[in-house]
């Protein structure tokens, strides 16, 4: 069952007709092939047209699409020997952030990222990708381990933000995020971060303070959600679309502002339509970016990261 976004209505209608046609064709008395082909071409054309001019608010919805490739799909397709590790060794295990050592296309690396979950049970398990202090402290643990074993770090970011809750605050949510960002900066091995869906505020930056920052074509990265921004500055969350545009949170806007390095194109109709194709292109981009840092020493890689962030906005 495909989840259609509001602006995909014309596509939904066409695809329903294709389905009906196929169902009614029955024993093949009528040859529907030609008609189906025509409709499918129309779908393709429609998707191309719609996705070529998505508004920032529509991109936000694509970035949040439930069928968008998630961390588990990405690691399944791009990793071998992936061994997720659990716990921050201080308080608990937070499944909103998953990570561990493994091989990325054969190369030993440390991988980590947010996992939102894909059905009710797994969404609850992963807390919708909203990490608590334990998640960030686990990330610190993974980065320190990567440093010890000389492993590059790849991080896949997809979170609406850090979890806002009493216990998270009680256990030092702010400190945990700050320490994770600090650990990114301290890392003596190359780090590549890819924003694959939502890059939500401090909860994202804690895993995205990398040498190279990649964004999928329809992902977003922002200081606050458009709804949150609208409710503060416009005093109504109804203005989320305006806020999404004003904050310049799309991959294209952020590339123009020189805040990210690479935009990875998504398949026609978004990554959720062809997750495997999207993941492959994402993998290629990560591989290319990692290669740009081959042979860089510990100090060079750290200096590169510091200089990159200090240069932002200057």
């Amino acid at each position, binding site marked *: 069952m495909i989840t259609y976004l509001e602006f995909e209505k014309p596509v939904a209608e066409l695809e329903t007709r294709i389905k009906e046609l196929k169902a009614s064709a029955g024993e093949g008395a009528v040859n529907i092939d030609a008609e189906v082909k025509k409709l499918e071409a129309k779908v393709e054309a429609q998707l191309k047209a719609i996705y070529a001019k998505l508004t920032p608010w529509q991109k936000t919805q694509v970035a949040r699409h439930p069928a968008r490739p998630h961390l588990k799909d990405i690691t399944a397709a791009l990793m071998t020997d992936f061994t997720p590790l659990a716990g921050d060794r201080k308080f608990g295990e937070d499944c909103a952030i998953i990570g561990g050592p493994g091989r990325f296309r054969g190369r030993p690396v440390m991988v980590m990222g947010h996992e939102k979950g894909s059905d009710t049970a797994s969404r609850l398990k992963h807390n919708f990708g909203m990490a608590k202090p334990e998640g960030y402290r686990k990330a610190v643990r993974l980065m320190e381990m990567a440093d010890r074993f000389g492993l590059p770090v790849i991080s896949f970011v997809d979170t609406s933000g850090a979890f806002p809750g009493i216990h998270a605050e009680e256990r*030092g949510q702010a400190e945990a995020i*700050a320490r994770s960002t600090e650990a990114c900066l301290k890392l003596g091995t190359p780090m590549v971060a890819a924003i694959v869906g939502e890059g939500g505020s401090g909860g994202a930056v804690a895993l995205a303070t990398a040498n190279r920052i990649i964004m999928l074509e329809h992902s977003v990265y922002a200081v606050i959600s458009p709804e949150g921004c609208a409710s503060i500055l416009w005093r109504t969350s109804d203005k989320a679309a305006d806020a999404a545009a004003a904050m310049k949170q799309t991959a294209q806007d952020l590339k123009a502002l020189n805040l990210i390095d690479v935009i990875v194109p998504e398949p026609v109709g978004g990554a959720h339509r062809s997750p495997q194709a999207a993941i492959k292109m994402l993998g290629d981009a990560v591989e290319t970016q990692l290669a740009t840092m081959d042979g860089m020493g510990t100090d060079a890689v750290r200096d590169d990261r510091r200089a990159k962030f200090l240069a932002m906005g200057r």
Partner: protein
Amino acid sequence: MSWLERIRPALSFLTKKETPDNLWTKCRGCGQMNFHRELVDNMNVCPRCEFHERIGPKERFQQIFDGGKYERLGIPSVTEDPLKFRDQKKYTDRIKAARGATGEPEAFAVAEGQIGDISAIVGVQNFAYMGGSMGMGVGEAFIAGAEAALDSRVPYVVFTAAGGARMQEGLLSLMQMPRATVLTSLLREAGLPYIVVITDPTTGGVTASYAMLGDVHIAEPGALIGFAGQRVIEQTIREKLPEGFQRAEYLHEHGMVDMVVHRKRLKAQLGSLLGVLTNAPAKAA
């Protein structure tokens, strides 16, 4: 002298906001009326209930430096309104209003002077300037302060206060978290003390970066300190928040700040800490 102080006479939009000395103000802590001058003489702490009223850089510098003597450091100028942001108001108009109301060029001011005979760079975030929100200007001022401390090899003391990020600068405002963290890391590597004094309120990205990365965290009594805003938390968990949640004393209890210090004892506390951390000889009693 800051650029603003130098060019102030030429700027007509800067109307100095002054409270006449004979005014009474209602305490936000106990609701009682305080004689304004009496309140100022008491470091803006309510003489009845000890409520710590928010104060700006000018007053803070005067309170914290020896003899009230200090020199302001210029803060770097940044691209104003990089996103051409407009909500109900234009961002540039909000900046103008904030400058007019505070007489400050940004929400973060830096000065150098001595605290208990120890030379230090002090940064003060200004809640009165757009809620102390962190954008490029605040980030660059924080960085300039840290660089000054690194250059002179002296401690960096930062008073934080922020309602959140400068949303009008989009992701650029979020990027101040890692940018400031580059500098806290450099201070650490250089072996220079970095002391954070967390004042009311300190929330959002400021808390989740340089406010929580100090060698020592001092909080002012009653200060609201947290990552997520209280309304957001209430909406998420649909429960009332416990009494004293996210207050300085609560953070102390939960191990996130080292001490809660009354404004009247703050200078002495900073002086003794800085003395020990910089290996300065003990002062004659």
